[in-house]
């Protein structure tokens, strides 16, 4: 088994590879040299790489590799229809579909668009239920744009899909993307005249626990949240050990649905790590309390960690990976107790993901 960590940077994709022990890492790259890789994955179903590769001149692409990154193929005719009066600006997140539909992939982009592929990423169809959502005129772009950045397929319920859009909120579909309902009850929008609107929440990252149906975690512009009912209601979890309610990155432990990780940042107007240190915070009780879990991380740091900046693997003990805008990648192979820098001096890291190749 080869464990792969994908570091998407502003100047290409880097692949860190290790044996299952995750003690020694070999760096490859840059792949897709010159492209900004906002997100990339190893598809757990077939080992293919998929990358959201964007360029300020040449636009938004999603690319697939079947040889671990040696060669790549761009998706065909990716874009939004003329009648939408929208132009695809960037691809932000690619997510595999359920195991029973091996060709299915989901892709989120800017401006607030979602695509589905049923042929392994060769072609993509825009989801009209998002483009034509009745609340769309109330969605506002965040600092990164009006972006669909979080996509999760329901655990044990492959027809269910969750998306997070900044700043529109979380939405749930129970019919594989045909229709969408807002899922923001209990999530604050403190910047809004109405702090508890139906939509307009600035969700930063949504993850569904892979082993427990209906359990979601959310890092938001205004707090950290957990839902135990598939996003119908959310419980706010900050103020009990976290130095800040603001952040982007979020990680989970596939073995325990009560464990989560976040990287608090000072706040919306100063997006660097809290307390002048790189601090990962861990909860083991569903978010009722949080503790610093940062052995080996720099105690004097003034860096940013973006929404795709943390990933967790599916191994035991748990591996966690953290990518920084300063170009470093840190890894932990004991659930966050100890961290080691496994890459440095890369271009700013925009995304980190992990997967395995057998």
């Amino acid at each position, binding site marked *: 088994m080869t464990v792969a960590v994908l570091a998407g940077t*502003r100047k290409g994709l880097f692949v860190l590879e290790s044996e299952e022990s995750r003690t020694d890492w070999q760096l490859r790259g840059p792949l897709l*040299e*010159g*492209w900004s890789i906002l997100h990339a994955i190893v598809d757990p179903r077939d080992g293919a790489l998929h990358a959201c590769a964007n*360029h*300020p*001149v*040449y*636009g938004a*692409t999603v690319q697939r590799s079947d040889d671990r990154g040696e060669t790549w193929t*761009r998706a*065909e*005719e*990716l*874009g*939004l229809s*003329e009648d939408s009066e929208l*132009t*695809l600006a960037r691809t932000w997140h690619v997510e595999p579909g359920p195991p029973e539909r091996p060709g299915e992939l989901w892709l989120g982009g800017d401006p607030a668009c979602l695509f589905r592929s049923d042929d392994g990423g060769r072609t993509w169809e825009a989801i009209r239920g998002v483009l034509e959502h009745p609340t769309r005129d109330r969605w506002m772009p965040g600092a990164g744009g009006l972006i669909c950045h979080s996509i999760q397929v329901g655990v044990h319920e492959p027809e269910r899909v969750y998306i997070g859009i900044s700043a529109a909120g979380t939405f749930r579909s129970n019919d594989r993307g045909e229709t969408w309902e807002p899922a923001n009850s209990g999530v604050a929008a403190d910047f809004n005249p109405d702090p508890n609107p139906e939509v307009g929440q600035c969700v930063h990252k949504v993850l569904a626990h892979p082993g427990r149906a209906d359990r979601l975690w959310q890092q938001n512009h205004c707090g950290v949240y957990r839902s135990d009912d598939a996003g119908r209601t959310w419980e706010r979890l900050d103020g009990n050990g976290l130095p800040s309610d603001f952040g982007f990155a979020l990680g989970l432990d596939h073995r325990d649905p009560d464990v989560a990780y976040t990287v608090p940042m000072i706040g919306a107007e100063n997006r660097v790590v809290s307390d002048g240190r790189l601090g990962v915070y861990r909860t083991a009780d569903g978010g009722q309390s949080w503790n610093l879990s940062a052995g080996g991380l720099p105690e004097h740091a003034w860096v940013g960690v973006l929404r795709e900046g943390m990933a967790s693997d599916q191994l035991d003990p748990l591996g966690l990976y953290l990518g920084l805008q300063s170009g470093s990648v840190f890894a932990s192979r004991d659930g966050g107790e100890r961290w080691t820098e496994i890459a440095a001096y890369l271009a700013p890291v925009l995304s980190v993901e992990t997967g395995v190749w057998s």
Partner: protein
Amino acid sequence: MVVVLLPALLATEAGGRAQFELDARTVEQALRQLPIADLVFDEHGALRRLVNVYVDGTDIRERDGLTTTLDGSETLRLVGAIAGG
């Protein structure tokens, strides 16, 4: 034949080819034949805003844009007009 020269990133996306020789009567006809046409034009068919096209050294904006006619002896050069990092 019209010669089209690509910058490095587009050449990589075109399978490693930086130069194409094409039959074309207009700039648009030439560009549409390229295997990287989707990176030069957006999904609605518009030339991407930051793609500069030069015909024998002259920006097509100073001529007739994409409808600039070609007689087959020209060299087209594509340049990404981006500044900064």
